[in-house]
């Protein structure tokens, strides 16, 4: 492990990617993820790796498609409006069974919105923002150190399943600083070889990477292969954290920045005698339905809190399936919720 350093969320994601062996990074500037780009601009060329400031987010996602097809670890990053532009490319990457990492430092929307922290891109990330029957692993870091850990995990999962993986964080996580200890760098040369990659058909049959077939029966088979992979991911990769849920009457369901704010709420509520806990999905897809369902059968209330109009709330209700009441509290437009606001919501459900 390296030394403990005070770092910004955006820088930690960039540095963690470098240490995970990311050889190519492509992006177009956008607030609030500027420092991610700047860290890559400063460090990738120095390491003999690739940093390209693309002409647009569409350019960047397709550069990612190309680099992934060439078999190297590669990443792009942006914020909400830019991520919208990447959707077509993400669909291609998923349909072509390519590993790639995409970072979304979310801001307020829709449209141009603002640059303040928000969580309004949950549907887009977890339900398929692009076209077709595809899925993408979505990781929701809640602290700066966790952003580093999940970035490294993202590269590993992407390679393991040959899928796109998204880090879904918000502007607050991108901008804030916290002490972080990052692991030692991986030498890309030591990573497992990808025999499907486009390296030149020397001494083997050509490798072809595509996401299409005009014969519906063949395309159906290709889709079934994807679906089988997705079931395997659902069975093996759902991750979550439970905090003070053992004796809880009420639990907050929240992810990312909101979940860490909610931890303070749990402590304050308990000081008032309210038995409050927190359920925090770490993978937003696959969503940890089973553990939440199990928890819901032991509590009275599952209060979903988001910085959106209620997007993860739909997954929470699917999981809880009437086993507990499922109210919602959210802020929108980049307004960040606070411990006080959440606590006053919690009090409504406490007896």
């Amino acid at each position, binding site marked *: 492990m390296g030394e403990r350093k005070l770092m910004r969320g955006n820088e930690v994601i960039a540095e963690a990617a470098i240490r995970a062996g990311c050889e190519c990074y492509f992006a*177009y*500037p*956008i*607030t609030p993820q*500027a420092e991610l*780009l*700047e860290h890559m*601009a*400063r460090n990738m*060329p120095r390491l003999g790796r690739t940093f390209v*400031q693309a*002409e*647009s*987010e569409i350019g960047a996602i397709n550069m990612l498609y190309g680099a992934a097809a060439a078999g190297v670890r590669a990443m792009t990053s942006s914020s909400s*409006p830019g991520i919208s532009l990447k959707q077509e490319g993400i669909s291609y990457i998923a349909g072509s069974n390519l590993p790639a990492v995409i970072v979304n430092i979310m801001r307020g929307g829709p*449209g*141009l919105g603002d640059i303040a922290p928000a969580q309004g891109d949950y549907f887009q990330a977890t339900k398929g923002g692009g076209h077709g029957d595809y899925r993408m692993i979505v990781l929701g870091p809640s602290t700066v150190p966790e952003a580093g850990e999940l970035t490294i995990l993202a590269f590993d999962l992407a390679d393991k399943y040959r899928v796109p993986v998204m880090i879904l964080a918000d502007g607050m996580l991108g901008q804030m600083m916290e002490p972080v200890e990052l692991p030692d760098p991986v030498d890309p040369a030591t990573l497992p070889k990808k025999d499907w990659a486009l390296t030149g058909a020397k001494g083997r049959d050509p490798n072809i990477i595509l996401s299409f077939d005009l014969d519906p029966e063949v395309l159906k088979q290709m889709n079934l292969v994807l679906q089988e992979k997705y079931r395997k991911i659902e069975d093996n990769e759902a991750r979550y954290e439970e905090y003070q849920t053992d004796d809880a009457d009420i639990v907050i369901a929240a992810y990312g920045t909101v979940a860490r704010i909610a931890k303070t709420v749990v402590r304050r509520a308990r000081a008032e005698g309210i038995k409050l806990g927190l359920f925090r999905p770490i993978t937003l897809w696959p969503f940890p339905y089973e553990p939440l369902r199990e928890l819901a059968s032991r509590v009275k209330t599952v209060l979903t809190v988001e910085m959106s109009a209620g997007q993860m709330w739909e997954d929470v209700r699917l999981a809880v399936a009437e086993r507990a009441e499922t109210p919602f509290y959210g802020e929108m437009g980049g307004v960040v919720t606070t411990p006080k606001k959440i606590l006053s919501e919690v009090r409504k459900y406490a007896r």
Partner: protein
Amino acid sequence: MPVNTENMVKVFGRPESLTDARFTYCPGCHHGILTRIIAKAIDELGIAERTVTIAPVGCSVFAYLWYKCDAVQASHGRASAVATGLKRANKDLIVISYQGDGDFASIGTAESIHAANRGENITVIFVNNQIYGMTGGEMAPTTLVGQRTTTTPDGRDPAYFGYPIRFSELIATLDAPVYVTRQALYDTRRIMDAEKAIKKAISYQVEGKGYSLVEVLSTCPTNWHMSPLEANRHVAEVVTEAFPLGDLVDRGG
């Protein structure tokens, strides 16, 4: 005693079509001068009531605040496409698209070229400040060779990042555009030239002649890390070397 204004000549006034809203631009930024020039042209042509301005994404995202005209805000780079839609839907509108260099010449490349190539009867004002001002000073497609930005910390190396793009020259190779010109604002003479060019460009649209593009070399004292005066001098002495001033095409006369 009331002042007798009868024999006075008004040499400097606030253009009628400019609102009272305060500019959001940094001190010494040319975006402000350019905004006034456009308002003046709108006044002189008497078209405020049928003009629609398009605000881009960039430091001029608030452009809709400055004119007493209808306005729409477009997504990053797509203003020329939005302009096309407006004009095709209602040809009586005078459509002015105001776009930064990142907006017009990078992310919007396809929309920019194809609006010009179709000869849309619109006017595009293209603000070339060689930087992404709004997002904090990243490299623009127009960033000069050797120029330091937050994403070219050692200066723009053409072997790694390519050369500054001369987008107006690209547009000038097309058959459709009626007027393509590059102007600057670093001294009074250039400002007067730019006023003439912008008025001409918009009047071509009023006359139904077709597409015009006015590129304006502009400053960004904040992200160039220069005083406004140094920035003016930099445009005059350095930027105009890479981006020569003058008309590239004028088929309107």
